[in-house]
């Protein structure tokens, strides 16, 4: 392990800003890093694509895993073994030209395999494939005691289940083995459908099983009759070849500085949303596109998080059991659009019924909604606390990967297995998130 002083490591939302005392870099899996000798608390850090404080460790040590970026084996059976700091971008570059695809993809390709496991991430195919963790055959975990444990559903099952979705708290994942699947083409046949409100959304969602990937974009500022309007995107791998794995390029455009606070305000966002909504001129449109813009629409703009200004932003993502007229989702949208807060893009999706493998996994059957909020201090936090109450009353949960502020009470209500989980936490590992929701 190499010490890197003074290289800041933040989270995607740039709120809160919490500095570790030290960042060390894991480079080689054979080199048993002496975790016991490092001044704790310790926490692994991948690409920092988590929004809030689950990848932060104030006054602790961050272990940068991106040097662990080697592939280890890839067989004709689609089993891929690689080190934990390999990004999904690097994997796609290798496997797509060979006719394989990753089982689950989030909205950005700049996440590490370790991060994907630790948040048990979900994608646009959750209704069919479940979470990322469901495709992990096994992984090796380094504990601060120096033990290295290969965990799978057969061996060290408790640790396997605690580590998937375990927010990096059970130790350092050194490598993992993932099951990939074959695709005829990396291109996606996409259909865009405009919907005028939540009931229409639910009617379209009833058709989800027939499509591999589905997601909807909602206008979080639309009120009254327009509440819950948006655009439904659904697609499946094209049967004919479109592009076989174009090389990963860096973003074409990069935001080089913090936008002045207020560039993204209610007026500019409402206008943007209205344009997006009406741009889909026809009610329904179809096309075949390369997979990158379909899965990673924002990866083309480097550091777009800076558009929210120096104060940063929060993403709020919840899941609630589905109800006939949209239930809690309708209440949340009404509360947000009436709040006066700067709510940006909203993403809505129906999760499938596949059980998530992790004790602390976020996905569960129901509707999930994610909304970005510019951070404007107390009033933003108060609104999100209010949303937490709606989610709790509905029996739902809020996603820790996006969280910077949920209360310990909410955490326990959202994740009833927390006590079993806490027993598996490595005594030397912790995060700013964990100290916040789990006071010792």
């Amino acid at each position, binding site marked *: 392990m*190499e010490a890197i002083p003074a290289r800041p490591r933040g989270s995607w939302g740039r709120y809160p800003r919490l500095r570790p005392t030290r960042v060390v870099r894991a480079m080689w899996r054979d080199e048993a890093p002496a975790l016991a000798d490092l001044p704790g608390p310790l926490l692994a850090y991948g690409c920092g694509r988590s929004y809030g404080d689950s990848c932060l460790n104030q006054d602790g040590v961050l272990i940068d895993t991106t*040097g662990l970026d080697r592939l280890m*084996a890839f067989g004709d059976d689609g089993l891929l073994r690689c080190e934990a700091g390999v990004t999904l971008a690097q994997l796609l570059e290798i496997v797509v030209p060979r006719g394989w695809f990753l089982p689950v993809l989030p909205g950005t390709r700049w996440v590490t395999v370790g991060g994907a496991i630790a948040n048990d991430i979900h994608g646009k195919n959750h209704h069919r494939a479940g979470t990322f963790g469901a495709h992990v055959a096994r992984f090796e975990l380094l504990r601060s005691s120096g033990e290295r444990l290969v965990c799978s559903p057969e061996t060290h099952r408790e640790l396997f289940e605690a580590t998937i979705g375990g927010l990096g708290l059970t130790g350092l994942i050194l490598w993992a083995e993932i099951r990939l699947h074959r695709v005829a083409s990396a291109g996606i046949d996409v259909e865009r459908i405009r919907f005028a409100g939540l009931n229409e959304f639910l009617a379209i969602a009833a058709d989800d099983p027939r499509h591999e990937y589905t997601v909807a974009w909602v206008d979080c500022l639309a009120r009254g009759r327009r509440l819950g309007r948006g655009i439904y995107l659904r697609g499946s791998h094209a049967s004919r070849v479109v592009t076989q794995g174009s090389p990963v390029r860096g973003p074409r455009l990069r935001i080089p500085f913090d936008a002045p606070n207020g560039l993204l305000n209610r007026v500019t966002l409402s206008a943007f949303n209205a344009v997006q909504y009406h741009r889909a001129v026809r009610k329904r449109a179809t096309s075949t596109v390369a997979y990158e813009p379909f899965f990673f629409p924002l990866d083309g703009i480097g550091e777009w998080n800076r558009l929210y200004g120096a104060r940063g932003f929060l993403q709020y993502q919840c899941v609630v059991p589905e109800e006939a007229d949209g239930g809690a989702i309708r209440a949340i949208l009404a509360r947000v659009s009436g709040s006066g807060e700067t709510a940006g893009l909203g993403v809505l999706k129906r999760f499938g019924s596949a059980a998530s493998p992790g004790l602390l996994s976020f996905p569960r059957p129901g509707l999930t909604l994610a909304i970005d909020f510019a951070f404007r201090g107390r009033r933003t936090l108060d609104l999100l606390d209010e949303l937490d109450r709606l989610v709790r009353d509905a029996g739902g949960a809020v996603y820790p990967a996006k969280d910077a502020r949920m209360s310990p009470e909410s955490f326990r209500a959202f994740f009833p297995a927390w006590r079993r989980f806490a027993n598996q936490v490595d005594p030397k590992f912790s995060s700013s998130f964990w100290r916040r929701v789990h006071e010792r």
Partner: protein
Amino acid sequence: MSAERTARRVLIVGATSAIAMEVGRAYAERGASLFLAGRSPERLDAVAADLRVRGAAPVETMVLDVLARDQHADLVDRAFAAGELDAALLAHGVLPDQARCQERPEEAVRALEVNFTATVALLTLLANRFEAQRRGTIAVIASVAGDRGRQSNYVYGASKGGLHVFMQGLRNRLHHSGVSVLTLKPGFVDTPMTAGMPSNPLFASSRRAGRAIFRAIEARRDVAYIPWFWRPIMALITSLPEFVFKRLRL
């Protein structure tokens, strides 16, 4: 670049270096056959597996500490055993602590032995093979630090600057046999070697450096700054008269 024109058989010494691994990846993606030498067997295996999965075939390895000069001939024999080499890259190197070099001569001597003496020994054997086959590229990773001595790292700088001069002569000699001799001069690259330094905007990723080195080998360049912007920077630094330069704290 057409597939036939890229090198098919490549030797990399110091193959576990972060920069060299990225050069290896560029070749692996094109299905090249690689011979890797490095001093740690576990790390060598990890890199070899990575390059195999990325498409290199076959990948052979040999555990070698470059200070063990009695093994150099064996390395060269084995690397050439399966036929001619298209390219050889020497990437091993150490960055000694300048302050300690000033206190203990052994520190300075050790760094010179790894960076300079061992490299010259290897180059001598490799040059004769390449000269005999009358084609290919011999590349060495030197450094911008070798362009001008600075108080903060002149032992390292001297080891790399010495390589620069040696390579000039070798280039002149092998040019007549159709062999290209490439001196690579990286600036700051984000690797374990520089992990202790504070970051600055001039740092390049090991991937960027590796890709640039791959292109320089394929283009049969003589000297390549990595990335390119170090050429004007070093032109400026080397143009300062000594009576000015010696007063600076660099």
